[in-house]
């Protein structure tokens, strides 16, 4: 074997995957079409956001790279949803696009055990009798062998881009599609489908009249994404974004030209995401709305290019220019790159185990947009997990599968492999049943220990976690013991009604905040801000969290009832035909997973339980 592992693709999934394997001392090769395109942010220049921000922090806790990359390249930071509740607060940062990609590439180049190579993979080397992967074959005819392969091809497989009447084979504007591999996958028998996504135009900043728009500044205080960076250690510039709105005229121009859209003209067959609609979708589907928001976001510090967030479009370029110029502030806009849509191959993810290994070929793992997701964070999370499990595979260890109750990553992967997807899948907080327990600030407490036992976290990080745990316990202890006294009421009148009760109790009052209590109790002042914040949220929502924990217990019981992967559904009498087909397709590994498959009835689960109980 030439290598232990091969990673196909240098996108966000590929970066995490290659780093995990090489850091765990496996000789790893990353093959990607163009080394200069490693870590490109194909669409918006931002990392994080709702649920996605949580993913980034979970990736970090497990020992991934994304948080560190964005911490060093951000040009604006914000905590979203500050007022809407702790469970749904999320960090988001604007990235310096070029810097982000450069840094990613540099980190890869510095990694031990990792080689990078520019080429396009067109086929696999397999041992078909054993059903195992053996390596890859490239466009230039090179053959590389390895015991495991991780496929992260993003939007590139047999991809086509569309701008109005124009279309060409390409994965990202200006980059060729990866041709061949999609066909190879189909030949092996994988269920390969088509999805579509789009991106808006990029414009020249000096052509915009920013003074006619609302300015949106970042937070003054930056909370690092990575748990290894302490509060206050991020020293990055903060540049504003701008907000403007489409007009009735914009909508009229779009409607008048809708027949020229490849989407509406029927040229694009792939299904696009409803949560990220193109402007033509927004205008056609919501005719009553008389304006749509546009965020003007800088693409970096060393470029004048700006990203026009909210008006992704695949209308012809002349139409794009015309409707954009009808927007206040964009009257004289100069387009540098037009918006476009891309259609690409994806593999129905129910063909994967929760480890992200394909059921069809041992040792072949798939991650990222190829699994039907969209988004950098979703891709990175899968890349990380696929590689961790490829490592387990190489070591002969059981895979690491995170549950829905312990991480957004668990929700993401379970949804994919259990339900599959028909449109590009994006994570939402509402997909997580137990989101109150999946706060971004607790990702380290939930997962860092796991990262450590895999070998991706250093002892130093673990010590820091232990210190944090202790610190938090101490604060909680302090708050429980310290009662509200007369004098506290004098300092903080709000506390008067909690006289005689503990601080911990008072904190449950929506009006009372930790920042107030600090004034009353000097000992608190010495504690770390992050810890205080975390304790505040823990205590404030204790009741709700406890309510949810009960559900989690029940959920765990179902998850703990394992189904052997080779369970023979054809031999079970009594299953409905629909359930049998679905079980065979998804091959659930636990009763919990089986119950989540759509269309499965309780009676089917009952039958399954009987068989499992009897050990057939």
């Amino acid at each position, binding site marked *: 074997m030439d290598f232990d592992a091969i990673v196909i693709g240098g996108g966000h999934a590929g970066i995490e995957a290659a780093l995990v394997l090489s850091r765990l001392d496996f000789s790893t090769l990353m093959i990607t079409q163009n080394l200069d395109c490693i870590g490109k942010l194909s669409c*918006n220049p931002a990392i994080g956001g*709702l*649920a996605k921000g949580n993913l980034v922090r979970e990736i970090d806790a497990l020992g991934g790279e994304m948080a560190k990359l964005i911490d060093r390249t951000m040009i604006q930071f914000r905590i*979203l*949803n500050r*007022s*809407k*509740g*702790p*469970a*749904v607060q999320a960090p988001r940062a604007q990235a310096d696009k070029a810097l982000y990609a450069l840094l990613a590439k540099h980190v890869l180049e510095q990694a031990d055990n990792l080689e990078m190579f520019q080429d396009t993979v067109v086929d696999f080397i397999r041992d078909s009798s054993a059903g195992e992967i053996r390596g890859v074959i490239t466009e230039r005819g090179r053959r590389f062998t390895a015991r495991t392969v991780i496929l992260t091809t993003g939007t590139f497989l047999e991809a086509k881009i569309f701008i109005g009447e124009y279309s060409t084979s390409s994965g990202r504007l200006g980059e060729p599609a990866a041709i061949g591999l999609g066909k190879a996958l189909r030949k092996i028998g994988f269920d390969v489908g088509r999805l579509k996504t789009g991106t808006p135009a990029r414009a020249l900043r000096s052509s915009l009249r920013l003074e006619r728009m609302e300015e949106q500044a970042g937070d003054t205080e930056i909370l690092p994404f990575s748990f290894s960076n302490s509060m206050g250690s991020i020293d990055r510039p903060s540049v504003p974004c701008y907000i403007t709105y489409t007009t009735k005229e914009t909508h009229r121009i779009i409607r008048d030209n809708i027949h020229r859209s490849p989407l509406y003209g029927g040229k694009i067959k792939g299904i696009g*995401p*409803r*949560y*990220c*609609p193109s402007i033509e979708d*927004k205008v056609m*589907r*919501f005719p009553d*709305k008389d304006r*749509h*928001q546009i*965020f003007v976001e800088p693409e970096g510090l060393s470029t004048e290019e700006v990203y026009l*967030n*909210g008006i*992704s479009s695949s209308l012809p370029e002349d139409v794009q220019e015309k409707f954009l110029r009808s927007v206040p502030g964009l009257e004289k806009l100069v387009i540098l790159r037009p918006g476009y849509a891309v259609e690409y191959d994806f593999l129905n993810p129910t063909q994967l185990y929760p480890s992200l290994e394909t059921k069809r070929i041992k040792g072949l793992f798939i991650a990222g947009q190829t699994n039907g997701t969209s988004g950098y964070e979703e891709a990175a999370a899968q890349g990380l997990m696929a590689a961790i499990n490829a490592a387990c595979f190489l070591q002969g260890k059981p895979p690491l599968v995170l549950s829905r109750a312990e991480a957004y990553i668990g929700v993401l992967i379970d949804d994919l492999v259990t*339900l599959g997807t028909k449109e590009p899948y994006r994570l*939402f*907080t*509402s*997909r997580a*049943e137990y*989101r*109150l327990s999946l706060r971004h600030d607790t990702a380290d407490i939930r997962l860092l220990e796991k990262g450590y036992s895999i070998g991706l976290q250093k002892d130093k990080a673990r010590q820091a976690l232990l210190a944090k745990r202790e610190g938090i316990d101490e604060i909680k202890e302090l708050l429980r013991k310290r009662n509200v006294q007369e004098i506290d009421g004098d300092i903080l009148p709000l506390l008067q009604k909690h006289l005689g009760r503990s601080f911990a109790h008072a904190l449950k009052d*929506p009006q009372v905040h930790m920042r107030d209590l600090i004034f009353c109790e000097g000992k608190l002042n010495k504690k770390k801000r992050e810890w205080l914040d975390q304790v505040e949220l823990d205590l404030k*929502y204790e009741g709700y969290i406890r*309510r*949810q924990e009960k559900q989690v217990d*029940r*959920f765990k*019981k*179902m998850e703990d*009832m394992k189904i052997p992967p080779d369970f023979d559904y054809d031999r*079970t*009498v*009594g*299953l*409905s035909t629909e359930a049998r087909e679905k079980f065979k397709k998804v091959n659930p590994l636990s*009763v919990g997973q089986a*119950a989540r498959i759509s269309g499965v*009835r*309780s*009676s*089917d*689960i*009952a*039958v399954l*339980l*009987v068989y499992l*109980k009897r050990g057939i």
Partner: protein
Amino acid sequence: MQKENLYNQDSITALASPWGESAVAIIRVSGRDSLSMLSGLFEGRAGSGGRGNSGSPPLTEAKGFTMKHGVIRVPGSGEEIDEVVVAVYRAGRSYTGENSAEIFCHGSPAIIKRILDLLYEAGFRHADPGEFTLRAFLNGKLDLTQAEAVNEIVRAKTDRARAAALSRLSGSIERKIRSIKDGILKILAAVEVRIDYPEEDLEEEIVSERELEHWQEELEKLVSTYGIGKILQEGIPVVLAGRTNAGKSTLFNQFLKEDRAIVSEIHGTTRDYLEGVVSMGDIPIKLYDTAGYKMPAHSLEKEGMKRTDRIIRASRLILYLVDASTGVNELDREFFSANQNSKTLIRIWNKIDLSKRPCPVGFFPVNAKTGEGIIKLSEVIVERVLGGRSLESAEPIIDSIRQKKLLERALGALKDFRTGLSENIPLDVLGVDLKEALDALGEITGEVTSQDILNEIFSHFCVGK
């Protein structure tokens, strides 16, 4: 069956014998704590270890395979519901493998219903179809060679239960609950979209006070129909009255399609009232045959007529029979004038075969002996008890305490949401309340998945960049 109930160890109950009038009915309970939960309702009697409520050891101490004689009482008020025998089974040596018991009570639907309601109130959950059998399998208690049977049991019962639930008035309940559920789902979507799309320019107001009020009222209205539902479940009381020999018992038998009441040409054959449940147009009717009016009457007959009057007062509808061959006399006229303004009276012209006289206006002609006219008559009865509304447009009515409890849970959660909203409690926490309301409603009509929420978001809000 809710999928997660498959893994529960909680205590369940269900009627094990067929529903309806019978000599004895069996109610089964099972679950780790089932015996201690049941002991709160049960009071042992002599012969089962002591006298009255003092001497008898509680059920919790009863050995397996023993029978306890006693009464079921309403905790608190102490009202006695029925005299029963309870068979106690201990974990490991019972049908389900768990602690369990069988309550043998009188086979009257009203009593069965009362006992089941008390059990629900004590914390028992109504068993899902096939759940006892399933527990038996899971605890290794049944050596069934074919798992198929489980599915058949579960599915057959589910389907039958569903079919039953869908019939009658429940169809409209389901529609109603579904509409409330959709309403709340919309509100939840409005909450979720504001969480997942913090930067969209969405309206400040998530949901109007008026709309919340509306859904709350709908839920309250539905909960309050529970009393009516109960009557429906037990049957709407309808009484057959008239002079002796008018043919009441004949008509009674005709409706019941069996020879329940004695029929003869002797006046005063029926001495005491009889009851029987019949279904008319899918509505359960509790029909009473009574002793006929007679003048003069001896003391036994007088007692019978007194009882007749009592039944008449408790009934929703009076079917007053007149023998066409004799026609209306003084006694009948007296009755009609006493019930002059009553909307609950249907006059029936019976034995039309024996008389050439045309049916007088305001009378409904039948031949009780052959059944001629009684299909039309049942339609008139249904129309009267529904108050002129058709079955379809009838207001939905809930008829089980389970539904009532779930609706109350939903109502409570919705109220919490309203308060929370006015107190500016964060949205993520408010989402928990709405989810709770949906879960409760979902237990009646089928669960709400996160995909449903997302679908709602994307079909109603224009969001995303």
